[in-house]
């Protein structure tokens, strides 16, 4: 982590309009994210977590305030921001190689060099044998890895992850989040990850932001400092002695009551 600001969020808020009502989804969001930092965002359901990502990505326009990425105000989707969704959203009619290069194709950047790079990435993440396969032939975990490669190929400065593992079964989820967390650190990426899994947020993030109930505001920010045994990896960090402490604190902040 260094002190270059990648994302600056100033006084951000958004209000939705439907025929029935007007809903303020987010308000007074102020937050800065630094280079090579992974931020976890947790909050009660419906608090506007995903909306926040859409605002940062430029898919939605804020009602008030602004988002800056690398110092530029975001008013449309930026090429240097990658987005990963809950589902892998692979295109069933494209083989795996054609799926990972779709972003390059859209941006008109496709050339022999990055096709080669795509193949290398697929190989190094254990998908070398599936380059010409179709998505239905892959398991859920493999598909999500393909989705990550599709995002990484665009060499984004900032990655937005919207509950990227929640469509996977628990074991796959642990393995893939460990893998993707390590990849993000290794490639020195800055990332914002929305999740409803507190453990996942603590194990992967440098800071965890807790949002309040709607209208979502920042309730508290936790600096996560875990003494992980051995080499850093999200899975190993779950064994850190501080882990339980953070878990309990965040759980208390979330203030969830089952009615």
């Amino acid at each position, binding site marked *: 982590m260094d002190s270059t600001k990648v994302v600056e969020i100033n006084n951000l808020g958004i209000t939705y309009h439907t025929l029935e009502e007007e809903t303020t989804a987010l308000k007074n969001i102020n937050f800065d994210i630094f280079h090579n930092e992974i931020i976890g965002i947790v909050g009660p359901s419906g608090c506007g977590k995903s909306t926040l990502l859409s605002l940062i990505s430029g898919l939605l326009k804020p009602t008030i305030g602004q988002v800056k990425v690398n110092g530029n105000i975001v008013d449309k989707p930026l090429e240097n921001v990658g987005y990963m*969704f809950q589902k892998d*959203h692979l295109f069933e009619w494209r083989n795996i190689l054609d799926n990972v290069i779709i972003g390059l194709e859209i*941006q008109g950047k496709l050339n022999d060099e990055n096709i080669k790079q795509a193949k290398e990435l697929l190989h190094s993440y254990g998908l070398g044998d599936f380059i010409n396969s179709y998505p239905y032939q892959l398991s859920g975990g493999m598909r999500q890895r393909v989705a990550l490669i599709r995002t990484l190929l665009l060499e984004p400065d900032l990655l937005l992850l919207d509950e990227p593992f929640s469509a996977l079964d628990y074991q796959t989820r642990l393995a893939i989040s460990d893998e993707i967390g390590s990849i993000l650190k290794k490639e020195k990426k800055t990332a914002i990850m929305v999740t409803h899994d507190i453990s996942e947020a603590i194990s992967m993030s440098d800071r965890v932001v807790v949002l309040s109930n709607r209208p979502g505001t920042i309730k508290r920010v936790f600096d996560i400092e875990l003494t992980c045994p051995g080499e850093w990896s999200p899975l190993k960090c779950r064994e850190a002695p501080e882990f339980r402490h953070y878990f309990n604190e965040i759980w208390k902040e979330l203030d969830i009551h089952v009615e």
Partner: protein
Amino acid sequence: MSNKNISKNHEEFLQSVKRRKRSIFIVQIGILFFGLFLWEVAAYFKWIDPFIMSSPSRIWKLFLEYLTRGRLPHHVLVSVTETIVGFSIGTILGLLISIGLWWSNYWAKVFDPYIVILNSLPKTALAPIIIIWVGAGYTGIIVTAISVSIVVTIMNMYRSFISTDGDKIKLLNTFGATKFQVLRKLVLPSSIPNLISTLKISIGLSWVGVITGEFLVSKAGIGYIIIYGSQVFKLDIVMMGVVILAVISALMYKLISTIEKKFIKWIE
């Protein structure tokens, strides 16, 4: 994943699947021949009136006669050409219109009630008007075929286009895709399975249009044979026309499913 070393159990399983498939095919053929046989026998022993009901042997004899006299290939060619032309124009035009409706939600809403009415209206009712307007030749028949098939194409394809996964569109938008790119890279390819099932319906409807048109005005075609046979009260001719029609339209349907199997490898 195929495994070279097939176990005995697995082999038995494959055998039983194959047996079942073969048995279904044999029964299918059996029903056809039994029906034809019963029809023939009933006509032969005068259980039914062969003058009104015809019989397989009479149809066959007539078929050979028509074939050797040389008029039949011409009739078939005329109808098939009309159908293929009508079907192609109807499909292309229908696709273009449904793309237009997908492009502009506003105009889709505006045209919605008109499309609903056109869809519920039996299009064959329009055939006499169309033939008067565009002329009593091949064009009238082709336009009738288009009018019958195009509305289904528009409705099915438009519905398919708008049901494209919103998150997939969002994904392309995060790459900075234009609306045209969303159409070309996502909306059109994801609608191919729906396009094929629509083609299967609209080829049948094109035939409805062509035969209706030929009933009303024509000098040649399978519809012409049928209507001629009924006017001179020769049911053999009518039956032959219907049988030929059944065979050809089944072949065309089969052709579309073959194309489907060949080109869509990405469906499980």
